[in-house]
């Protein structure tokens, strides 16, 4: 015989609760957490290095590198002089709020203004799990194509800002910037779209301004 227990709870409820709790702690500590996502090779690490260079005189910055199993990115970030830690997801394709919390705890004394979480390169799974970040950003690089908002709507729907990277190669690709903006805004009317080139530094100023104002808003009561 069976006895049936009615549950009616969202599967992601545990993760969402942990994420909310983490955000509340971060608010108290005045630490802004940015979750940076993209597919592999879109330029997360290069963009991060530029971002750090633009903001490290104003903010104390920490970086959490999420990777399935390597230290490559953390080593690259450590060269910039900010605190970088490597989180291994142990084969998992995304980070959840619990893993993010462990990373934040590893920074120990939470005197950081800005922590950037470089999520696993993937446009699917990271969109499903709230990490506890204050804002979500994603990078779409020109060679990936302008159809990505159509293919990965969930990712575009949860991001506050979309960085379109590698704009220096626009002349060589059939990439329609207007189409990307239109497709992204259709899914998420509030998304900010900023064209950048992490290699040359083009557009990094506008991106740094966006991030700066977000951090300052978060730190005010």
């Amino acid at each position: 015989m069976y006895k049936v227990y009615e549950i009616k709870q969202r599967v992601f409820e545990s993760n969402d609760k942990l994420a909310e709790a983490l955000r509340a702690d971060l608010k108290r500590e005045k630490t802004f957490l940015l979750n940076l996502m993209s597919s592999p090779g879109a330029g997360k690490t290069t963009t991060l290095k530029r971002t750090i260079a633009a903001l490290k005189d104003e903010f104390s910055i920490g970086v959490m590198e999420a990777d399935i199993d390597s230290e490559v990115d953390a080593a690259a970030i450590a060269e910039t002089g900010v605190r970088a830690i490597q989180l291994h997801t142990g084969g998992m394709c995304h980070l959840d709020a619990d893993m993010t919390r462990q990373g934040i705890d590893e920074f120990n004394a939470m005197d950081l203004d800005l922590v950037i979480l470089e999520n696993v390169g993937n446009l699917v799974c990271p969109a499903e799990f709230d990490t506890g970040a204050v804002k979500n950003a994603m990078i779409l690089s020109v060679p990936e194509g302008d159809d990505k908002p159509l293919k990965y709507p969930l990712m575009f729907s949860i991001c506050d800002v979309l960085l379109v990277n590698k704009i220096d190669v626009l002349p060589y690709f059939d990439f329609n910037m207007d189409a990307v903006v239109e497709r992204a805004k259709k899914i998420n009317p509030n998304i900010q779209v900023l064209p950048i080139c992490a290699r040359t530094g083009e557009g990094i100023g506008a991106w740094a301004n966006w991030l700066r104002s977000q951090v300052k808003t978060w730190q005010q009561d």
Partner: protein
Amino acid sequence: MHELGIVFEIQKRVSAVAEENGLALSDIAQVVVEVGEASTIVPRYLKECWPAATDGTEMESAELVVELIVARVSCKKCGTVYEYLKNDRKCPNCGAWECVMVSGQEFNIKEIAVFEEGED
């Protein structure tokens, strides 16, 4: 393999729910989840991943049952509520594309069935 991570999340949630209700994980016969058609979760993959996640755990004998929830939207122009995928996303009444999701993004644990001996 997006569904594998999700299956682990179901397992975590079921463990928490079992503890709240004083149930032993090894007594769970069935876990019923509701998956919306527009939730980005593929039921077939979910079912395929389930044994991989539960094998060798206390939940090994539990079966995963997936119930699909149809994606329904409400047309922003004329207010008609229609089945999103069946109508190829377009309002069957006025032909507009703009709509608001009414149902179909759910991902819930609906119920858990537990083995019981003797009494009914």
